[in-house]
């Protein structure tokens, strides 16, 4: 017979889930849990400086490992501060367990101090959520939270625990089994056979890889399928890394800021094999004009994605890893010389222009120089803006889980805490963050967390003194009426970073910027590198609002 408080039970159930780190900020309603953390001494608590930071630190851990990670906040403002990071995890299908303290059950509904209905608020942005009503329920809820977060299409789960439930004593006989990922749905062999036949018969097939390929660990199988069937391959923003960009069959990213040849190949395809992707509007453009001549084979673990944006010719409901494994032996090896030659011609005719690629003082050159200084073991994190799109276009991503970016929600402020989480979960790797001067300010307080942890995070700040992506759109689509996208007042970022305790320098004043960059990137520990970027540099090519992917504009 085991007897303990609800709070201790929570900690012990987390231990049993294999949790070694969690990120959070304490407050009144979650203090019993923190006290249990202190007494057990088994889990390292990362004290974030803002709950959104804690949420993204946990996301960083989850994105590099694929395992559910945990963030913690107190009731009221602590809980509301977590919400953006939870919504971000929801849109990018990241397994996250968020634990919030709540006012005592008897006070719920009385507008008590720091009471908010975080259960109600988080319904639309979680896979599932719980308001725990007794310590005994924790025995079921905590393992179930992990099971749900990691099973099927992964996502965030919120567990709201009133303070009196944390203090309640409970006795029980048996520990519950930890919650683990459930096996995927049973595969329909006829569907797999039909998919194989469609691939075998197609003349101009294209493989379309999304974040689900990364999530299910299916990247090697996807590459094998592409090679066996000689299928040119495009990736979504979330799918980058699934196939090395310099693989002969890779066309890189498709969509709004993808290469023109990638969008043209999709346009001309007669079969589009969409794997682990939801056909997001940034990837697809005007849906009715997307891949007009293609039969779509849609393979996904979430049935609700079939027909949401495009009606598939064939839907295969499966874990994509299992589906690809079943598909491979049924797909006939082919050379497809004509189609590949045509795609090569598209590539030659519409190359992805990267002006200034050899100049470390320009955006593409900076990204290329960073990549040159690092190897494929590095993790690449971004914030949101032009710098994110340039990195997506120019960084030679070569392995799944190498690339961490806020895709679906596009959350400025994602980068720094996510990079910290990645570095904590995989301390053997170098983590490089490409951020913007707008984004970094949205969670800049986490520089203090970074300084404290001395994690191996290299911050490359691309400072154009503007909300560049907004500035670009006002220039291109709003008659150059620039409002609220240029910063009138510049920030001395180097001084700020130094003030937080992170070594920092300005690439601007350095005699040999490439050498300085390489040295900073290869010296262990945190560093902050401020790099001036021309505010008039825009992201090209670009699909304008409402246009089809084939109507891209160039510089």
């Amino acid at each position, binding site marked *: 017979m085991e007897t303990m408080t609800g709070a201790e039970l929570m900690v012990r159930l987390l231990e049993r889930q294999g949790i070694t780190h969690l990120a959070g900020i304490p407050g009144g309603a979650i203090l019993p849990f923190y006290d249990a953390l202190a007494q057990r001494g088994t889990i390292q608590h990362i004290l974030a400086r803002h709950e959104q930071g804690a949420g993204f630190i946990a996301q960083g851990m989850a994105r590099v490992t694929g395992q559910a990670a945990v963030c913690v906040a107190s009731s009221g403002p602590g809980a509301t501060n977590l919400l953006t990071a939870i919504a971000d995890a929801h849109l990018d299908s990241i397994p996250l367990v968020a634990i919030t303290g709540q006012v005592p059950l008897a006070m719920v509904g009385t507008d008590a101090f720091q009471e908010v209905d975080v259960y109600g608020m988080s319904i639309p942005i979680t896979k599932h959520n719980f308001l725990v009503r007794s310590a005994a329920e924790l025995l079921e809820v905590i393992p179930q939270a992990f099971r749900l977060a990691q099973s099927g299409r992964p996502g965030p789960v919120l567990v709201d625990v009133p303070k009196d439930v944390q203090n309640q004593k409970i006795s029980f006989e048996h520990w519950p089994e930890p919650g683990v990922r459930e096996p995927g749905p049973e595969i329909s062999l006829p569907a797999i056979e039909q998919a194989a036949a469609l691939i075998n018969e197609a003349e101009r097939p294209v493989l379309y890889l999304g974040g689900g390929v990364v999530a299910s660990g299916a990247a090697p199988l996807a590459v094998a399928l592409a090679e066996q069937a000689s299928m040119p391959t495009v990736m979504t923003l979330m799918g980058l890394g699934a196939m090395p960009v310099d693989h002969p069959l890779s066309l890189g990213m498709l969509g709004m800021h993808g290469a023109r040849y990638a969008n043209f190949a999709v346009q001309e395809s007669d079969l589009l094999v969409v794997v682990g992707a939801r056909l997001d509007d940034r990837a697809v453009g005007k849906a009715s004009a997307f891949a007009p001549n293609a039969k779509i084979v849609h393979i996904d673990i979430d049935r609700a994605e079939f027909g949401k944006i495009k009606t598939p010719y064939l839907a295969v409901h499966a874990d994509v890893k299992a589906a690809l494994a079943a598909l491979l032996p049924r797909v006939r090896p082919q050379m497809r010389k004509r189609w590949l030659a045509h795609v090569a011609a598209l590539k030659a005719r519409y190359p992805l222009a990267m002006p200034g690629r050899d100049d470390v003082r320009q955006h593409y050159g900076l990204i290329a120089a960073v990549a040159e200084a690092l190897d494929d073991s590095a993790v690449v994190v971004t914030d949101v803006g032009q710098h994110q799109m340039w990195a997506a276009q120019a960084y030679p991503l070569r392995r799944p889980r190498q690339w961490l970016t806020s895709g679906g929600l596009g959350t400025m402020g994602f980068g720094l805490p996510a990079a910290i989480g990645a570095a904590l979960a995989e301390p053997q790797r170098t983590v490089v963050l490409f951020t913007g001067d707008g984004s970094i300010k949205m969670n800049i307080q986490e520089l203090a967390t970074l300084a404290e942890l001395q994690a191996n995070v290299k911050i490359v700040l691309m400072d154009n003194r503007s909300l560049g992506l*907004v500035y670009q759109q006002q220039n291109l689509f709003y008659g150059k009426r620039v409002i609220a996208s240029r910063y009138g007042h510049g920030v001395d970022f180097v001084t700020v970073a130094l003030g937080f305790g992170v070594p920092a320098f300005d690439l601007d004043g350095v005699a040999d910027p490439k050498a300085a960059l390489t040295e900073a990137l290869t010296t262990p520990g945190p560093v902050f590198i401020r790099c001036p970027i021309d505010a008039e540099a825009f992201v090209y090519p670009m699909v304008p609002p409402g246009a089809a992917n084939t109507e891209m504009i160039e510089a």
Partner: protein
Amino acid sequence: MIEQVAEPLPTSGFEKTVLELEVNNHPGVMSHIVGLFARRAFNVEGILCMPLPDGTVSRIWLLVFADQRLEQLIKQLEKLVDVRSVRQHGADHEVFVQAERFFR
């Protein structure tokens, strides 16, 4: 950031249909379900809900328009953890026909 552009959805001329849901009976289930409809901009014309005799399961009857998004909505409903099953009936199902006399 740029406005998303989509063809406007046709909004009239759809048949009504009745959905029958079996859900776990605990506080919060109703918010999950009605929240899903609101979030996906799908109108619910009528709703009835009662626990089944053993108390652990509730049955929810929904009267909705069978527009082109209904199939998508049903799939989303089926993803909710507390939804055990979803069945679709014709609009003439007697549950709302009988309830009508309370709405005069």
